[in-house]
């Protein structure tokens, strides 16, 4: 029996390996089996109308149309697929030429090899050529591993994936994991496969086994994006905090959770205020979007816009946000400034930069350059008097002059030129101010004083 089986296989070897011969099956009428014309002939006659309706120019070009306008197509899908177009590729391509007889296709079982004598190496070779191979007969662990190693050595991603799918199905998880731990390429392949197909649970188990704890954490955290319901998302994030992130990342996840928690409270509260219609700020500036899932800085801006005066105790107050999330001064001031400027609350802007020292004297300072303050105020169309205050505070003289001139803060220009004792520029600036205005008078008096000294 063994001998005859061997004979059958060796014959099959010869017969089956039609990879290199372009065997084309042809029907009795001469058309290549599986070609468009053949299928059309076999199935319906309505195709004749479409062919007849063809452009005469087409008919000129192709002799076959002239002779047989309805029947013969000089092209067949199968010949295209076989690679008449790519002669060179066929030499190197791994997929062999399959037979093209869709209606006459032999049952799938006939494609499978019957013998149990294909070695793992040969099996892999055949799979690389696109043949369907049953892997079921590789029963022992040893065989399976050899098969996997051969697949990896062949570099063909499809084959590696096919073998991994088979192993995933037929091996106990612990064994599969253990074996993959020492086979990097196959391991990476499986991880990629699990990610693509969304087999989250198995992926996490695998990563945990490999002690790739941070990846487990990140992979799990990624899932939160698929949760649309805010409450459920909040709960999910709470669980994520305990995951094995790095210390830095843990604090970020913690912040994410805390932020969402706050946002849910603020959102519920503000929606209530809005519908009640009693709050002026919400009436004047109706909200365009919900605060849920917005970044921290956006939330701070929102808070500075709608809840600026609230005491630190409430969740929606800016100072509470600043404290809870340790927002640096720079970021806080910039955000508060942008919000208050948008509301044209110039007094609030003033208060942001005013500090009282222990003697009760006030002075202005900012953790950001005053030129930035001016920029933001100008973008919000602050009146010149307000703008002027801050232009005056810009430290760098050249920048100060540029801004003052650009935004027509005449007093500042005049004062700066005076301090620089620049008579020429001062005189030149006279033409930029209105005739008879207070500014013109100011310039004149300064010029006169200069002469005296």
């Amino acid at each position, binding site marked *: 029996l063994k001998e005859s089986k061997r004979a059958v296989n060796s014959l099959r070897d010869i017969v089956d390996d039609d990879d290199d011969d372009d065997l084309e099956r042809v029907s009795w009428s001469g058309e290549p089996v599986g070609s468009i014309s053949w299928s059309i002939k076999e199935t319906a006659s309505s195709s004749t109308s479409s062919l007849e309706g063809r452009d005469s120019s087409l008919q000129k070009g192709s002799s076959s149309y002239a002779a047989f306008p309805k029947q013969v197509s000089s092209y067949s899908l199968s010949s295209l697929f076989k690679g008449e177009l790519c002669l060179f590729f066929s030499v190197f391509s791994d*997929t062999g030429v399959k037979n093209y007889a869709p209606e006459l296709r032999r049952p799938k079982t006939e494609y499978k090899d019957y013998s149990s004598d294909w070695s793992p190496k040969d099996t892999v070779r055949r799979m690389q050529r696109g043949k369907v191979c049953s892997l079921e007969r590789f029963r022992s662990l040893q065989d399976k591993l050899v098969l996997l190693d051969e697949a990896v050595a062949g570099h063909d*991603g499809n084959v590696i994936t096919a073998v991994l799918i088979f192993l995933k199905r037929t091996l106990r998880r612990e064994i599969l994991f253990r074996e993959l731990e020492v086979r990097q390429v196959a391991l990476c392949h499986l991880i990629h496969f699990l990610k693509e197909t969304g087999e989250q649970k198995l992926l996490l188990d695998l990563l945990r086994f490999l002690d790739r704890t941070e990846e487990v954490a990140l992979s799990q*955290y990624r899932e939160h*994006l698929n949760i649309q319901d805010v409450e459920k998302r909040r709960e999910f994030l709470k669980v994520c905090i305990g995951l094995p992130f790095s210390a830095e990342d843990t604090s970020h996840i913690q912040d994410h959770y805390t932020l969402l928690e706050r946002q849910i409270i603020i959102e519920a509260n503000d929606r209530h205020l809005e519908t009640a219609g009693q709050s002026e700020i919400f009436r004047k500036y109706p909200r365009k979007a919900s605060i849920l899932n917005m*970044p921290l*800085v956006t939330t701070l801006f929102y808070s500075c816009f709608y809840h600026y005066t609230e005491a630190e105790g409430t969740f929606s107050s800016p100072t509470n946000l600043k404290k809870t999330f340790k927002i640096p001064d720079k970021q806080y001031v910039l955000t508060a400034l942008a919000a208050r400027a948008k509301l044209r609350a110039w007094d609030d802007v003033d208060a942001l930069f005013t500090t009282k020292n222990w003697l009760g004297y006030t002075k202005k300072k900012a953790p950001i350059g005053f030129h930035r303050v001016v920029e933001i105020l100008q973008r919000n169309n602050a009146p010149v008097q307000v703008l002027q205050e801050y232009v005056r505070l810009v430290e760098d003289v050249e920048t100060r002059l540029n801004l003052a001139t650009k935004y027509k803060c005449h007093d500042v220009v005049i004062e700066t030129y005076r301090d620089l004792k620049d008579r020429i520029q001062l005189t030149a600036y006279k033409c930029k101010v209105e005739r008879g205005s207070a500014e013109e008078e100011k310039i004149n008096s300064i010029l006169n004083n200069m002469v005296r000294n």
Partner: protein
Amino acid sequence: EHEVEKMFTLKPGRLPQADVKNIIFFVRPKLELMDIITDNVLREDRGRSPQRDFHILFVPRRSLLCEQWLKEQGVLGSFIHREQYSLDLIPFDGDLLSMESESAFKECYLESDQTSLYHAAKGLMTLQALYGTIPQIFGKGECARHVANMMIRMKREFPGSQNSIFPVFDTLLLLDRNVDLLTPLATQLTYEGLIDEIYGIQNTYVKLPPEKFAPKKQGEGGKDLPTEPKKLQLNSAEELYAEIRDKNFNAVGSVLSKKAKIISAAFEERHHAKTVGEIKQFVSQLPHMQAARSSLANHTSIAELIKDITTSEDFFDNLTVEQEFMSGIDTDKVNNYIEDCIAQKHPLIKILRLVCLQSVCNSGLKQKVLDHYKREILQTYGYEHILTLNNLEKAGLLKPQTSGRNNYPTIRKTLRLWMDDVNEQNPNDISYVYSGYAPLSVRLAQLLARPGWRSIEEVLKMLPGPHFEERQQLPTGLQKKRQHGENRVTLVFFLGGVTYAEIAALRFLSQMEDGGTEYVIATTKLINGTSWIKSLMEKLEPAPF
């Protein structure tokens, strides 16, 4: 010719009306595309007659994963033919080939998935079948090593592939993208590079805002302003484009003005044509002159559009910071400009390019600096970006400094990556493409040709991955004897992506007198900093299906 009735772009929903028997899906093996195809197939009216047959052609290879997916959706059986079309390398120009595999970098460097390297090797085998076996292979990087190994193995397994074609290529240079992570991050300053940076060139086409391209009709003014973006094809078939594409943008203006004078003069000739013969000759030249004029008009408009951007304050500030980093200034502290941009919520990719550039130029950031940037980014753009930051760290783009020492200054000095005296108009060195910075990858190619990599052994060791040389046997009759003055031809294959600026730099080397080498460029994908970083960002919206 091939009886193709219509061609449609793949989209979900019902397939459009077409009186055909066969429908062929021509797709890359991506799962998202399988979902669209499933939708198309399921919505097909099975009652209609004649019934349409479905087939699927995967480019460049069939994917078991995709077929499995289709099987699970219950539509696999609907396909009569399931085949592959081995289109590995696509010619983009006379000296440029690309696989256009967007995920190659991410797969190779983040996921250790070498499928795209396999395709690269296949593509190279095809190339050798057409142009002859390449006798010398040099490489630097892990992926380069894999590709070379695969090529050698493939050659062994197909002994019949030994052909009798005279080799066109003398050398193949395989380079991993991660050997030079710096170059794609910097803003390109060549004409073509800037078009790509600002508008994005897709498959040699660019879509531009239409206002500047509206034909000025007499007396109509702005009545009929076009709303569709203007689509232009950009390749070397266009004479003017071939001339200006690789120049530094600052040198483009003078070329355009010279061209304008020539074309005007040519049109003036019509006044001088007196005899029938002269008029006939003028008329025969007319189409060429009209094409030249239209080409000039297009590129003048494009140059204007670009100039608006390059003269802006923000572009200047950004470029200044980039150049500071590349010349090694202040790469170890938090940068004010970057902080300001975050505070003003500039586009996240712009921020990421800058912080990654700083990290690469510092061989990794000090933990404090890195934490500071990360915190600001997460607080401003959202905590979910932790996932992207993690990817960037894995790719080596934004990471903590591990060894405590910064190798970049040594690399920069030895390879002369920063050149202070750049001549943008008449360059004498490849550093003109970034107005001062010479792309590291191209320098490696340049030094390989002359004087050879042995002179930079120490620096090569500082760059990731092995470097190697392989020789492939040529049958004795085919050994190339180079004539005096004949250039060597080197194929440079960038594994992970290449920028237009690098291509320009290699073309510059090709046309250098006494350069000795001409370059042909191949890559897995044509990229710029933005598209590259984007490919590494986590998809944050949940999948539509």
